[in-house]
């Protein structure tokens, strides 16, 4: 494992190598060479299983961190590849030619975070959200409660209650709210 990581440092300038547990390591790589690194890991290092692709929104830093989780069945080892991209120009190289399910993840990331993957098939087709016209909902600034109230209006019984106060007023009005 150390040999591989040293080679990746040398050839791909990977950084922030962190051993999370004996079976899992994470590292960071530049956006421009990420696709080449992932291809190399798949073809030469037998990290043949793509567990998933996901994204973390670091709104405070103005970046999205894309996470490509790859697994090596021979070594029982998982590598998490972190790639930072700008929130303002959210675009990343597509890896749909490497795994059959990759384009589905990319389509979901386009819908949920607004990240573009040029060349990825059916990228602009709706995934979960048919006719969605708001900002991508998994972005941190999207407020689900506000959206829900504006879109669906107020619904009786859906207010947030402080349990103690609610019980005092509604359930035990004659007992001053204390369970005895």
């Amino acid at each position, binding site marked *: 494992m150390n040999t591989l990581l040293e080679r990746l440092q040398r050839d791909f300038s990977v950084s922030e190598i962190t051993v999370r547990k004996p079976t899992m390591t994470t590292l960071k790589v530049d956006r421009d060479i990420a696709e080449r690194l992932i291809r190399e890991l798949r073809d030469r290092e037998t990290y043949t299983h793509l567990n998933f692709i996901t994204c973390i929104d670091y709104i405070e830093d103005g970046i999205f961190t894309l*996470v490509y989780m790859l697994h090596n069945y021979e070594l029982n080892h998982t590598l998490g590849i972190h790639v930072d991209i700008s929130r303002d120009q959210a675009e990343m190289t597509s890896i*749909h030619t490497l795994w059959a399910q990759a384009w589905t993840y990319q389509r979901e990331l386009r819908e949920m975070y607004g990240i573009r993957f040029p060349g990825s098939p059916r990228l602009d087709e709706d995934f979960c959200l048919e006719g969605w016209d708001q900002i991508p909902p998994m972005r941190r600034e999207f407020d689900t409660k506000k959206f829900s109230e504006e879109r669906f209006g107020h619904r009786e019984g859906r207010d947030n209650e402080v349990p103690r106060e609610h019980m005092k007023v509604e359930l035990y009005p004659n007992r001053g709210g204390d369970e005895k």
Partner: protein
Amino acid sequence: MKQSTNSIRTGSASIGHASALDFAQPEPLDMASGKYVKLWQGPQHPGITGNMSLELVLEGDTIIDCKTHVGYLHRGFEKLMERRTFIQNFTVVCRIAVPEPTFNEYLYSHAVEEISGIEIPERAIWLRTLNLELMRLASFLMWIGGMSGAFGQYTVPNWTLAYRDFVLDLFEEMTGARIYHMYIVPGGVRAGLPDGFRKRARDVMDGAEKLLDQVERVMFNNAVFKARSKGLGIISPDMIDPYGIVGPNARACGVSRDLRKDEPYLAYDQLDFDVITGSDSDAYERAYLRLQETRQCISLIRQCLDHTPGDGAFQADMPNVLHWKVPAGETYVKAECTRGEYGYYMVTDGSEFVRRVHVRGPSYTHAIAVMERLAVGNNIADIAGLMVSLHTYPPEIER
């Protein structure tokens, strides 16, 4: 009734996929030519749990294009979890895969424990293992019914779904709930076993074993079921990694991968079992392999009942969960559910809220990339059986 080819040609347009490693999308069809009919199948399917649609293009009664549509059950679980405290989330996660909530409970709890450095007691380890295997049995019983029903046999679903209720009775005794148990919580489990539970559970296992013998006779020896399911939706070994195929769908074509053996968790390294594999991953082989795994599951439950300690702590010492801040960290934990690798990726930032949770369900690839490829070339009558044979749960796709 069936056509086993996965790549067919109409006119000059090549559709389908030339090889397992060719992920190219099919060329657009001339729908105005009058040669094709577009048909929506779904979103209600008796054989799968949840809703999804298949947009099929037919030439005659042969499927020449298939697109999976999801979104009917999107409730935004991953987003919801970012706005709730760590202890609040365990009531949310169980709803992500309706027939198998406990895998979500376990993986969420395990991820939080791993990042927090919490060790759970021995008794909780065994109780969790027992809980997960009971869940596997209930899920497989439900699936067998769906598979049989998809091929027009309605006796078996009545048997297996009725018997599943006896397993749900056990869950009710053990956890207080039949479907969403919320039994596995960060730090351990919520309770030990009630008095007399082990005997009642063993009685249910004895009955389940007899039931499976009857299912094998009625379903797997049925000439119609054999004729329609053999050769349907063949998954070849060279598709496994490129398509991310896991669990029984992969094992049915001879790939011996099972997280319970490969990366043992909970008490699986102390249980006696082998990884069951098949040879041709068609719908029949996948179904038969799951029947064998259901039998194996009964054996595992019996072993858990023998080994689970009767006393001792079932919860680790925990901080005040109402003001619980989990240290900054990142992990990916996984378990072998009935359909293969189920995983939780979690990132924390030291606050009382999780920064990001990504739920990896096996249906994500089985129901979309794999389904879209395998459907092409098959007869419309077989599409329901093919879909159920992949064992997918749409809610875990949408999260």
